[in-house]
């Protein structure tokens, strides 16, 4: 399946079906990461049940140093 993450088109393995599995796939499941799927911000508790589809646009953001 092909999805767009942070503006970049990426091929995702077939066994990655949910947002939670996507985070695991990139080793980000222990990180503070906020996910937006097709312009909808997801609550952390919903990562496990949110399914991905071909063509989805995903934004993954985090906190960085700033003033």
């Amino acid at each position: 399946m092909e999805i767009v993450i942070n503006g970049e088109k990426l091929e995702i393995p077939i066994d990655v079906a949910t947002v939670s599995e996507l985070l695991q796939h990139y080793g980000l499941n222990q990180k503070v990461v906020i996910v937006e799927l097709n312009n909808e911000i997801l609550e952390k508790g919903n990562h496990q049940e949110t399914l991905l589809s071909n063509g989805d646009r995903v934004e993954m953001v985090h906190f960085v140093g700033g003033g």
Partner: protein
Amino acid sequence: MLRIGPFEFSSRLLLGTGKYPNFDVQKKAVDVSEAEILTFAVRRMNIFEASQPNFLENLDLKKYTLLPNTAGAKTAKEAVRIAKLAKASGLCDMIKVELIGCQKTLLPDPIETIKASEELVKEGFIVLPYTSDDVVLAKHLEDLGCHAIMPGASPIGSGQGIMNPLNLRFIIEQTTVPVIIDAGIGTPSDAAIAMELGADGVLLNTAVSGAKDPIKMAEAMKLAIKAGRLGFEAGRIARKEYGQASSPVEGMSIG
């Protein structure tokens, strides 16, 4: 005590987390500053570098209150989105509304700041807008429910210190929610002057992170803010045009 919305803090120093030489120096500077509120920015993650360390992950989040900013947003809509992204982390309810209207001076856009602040107050955020030092704008922001007002001392990162103490004093006098002087502080004396004017707190970043010794400067800022606050509470003497002797005039054993 500094009270912002439902929160109480014993420190009046709010510290930014940008541009430190390294995490070790940053951690020590944060510790020494005794700041309880730390600002952060929200940015896209590099998903291919999961092992990359992140300062936030090394923080004891029970000890600190996070104040994410909306830096990077140019419109109220963008700022509201960044605020919601930050809140979805489940780590914070406060938001620093930062809407830059001029890329050269980094001064805020008052109209977009008003729009974003209004919406975020309605959405239940604890809203701290970074604003220019305009007393009428500050009043509008307070009236629409902002939990603190954060006027700049001078342009962000400029280190020029307090350019218009009169305007800051007007805002401090006429605002009932906390006033936090944000941006432009360069030296401990700048921070002390802000507090002597009656500010409830000071938010600074570059003054510490960009100092030759950030850890030492963090301590200097902590002490300056305490000293300035004590001075404000103690109440300064009136300015007089001519000298007034401190020693008694009577009883001198001369002539």
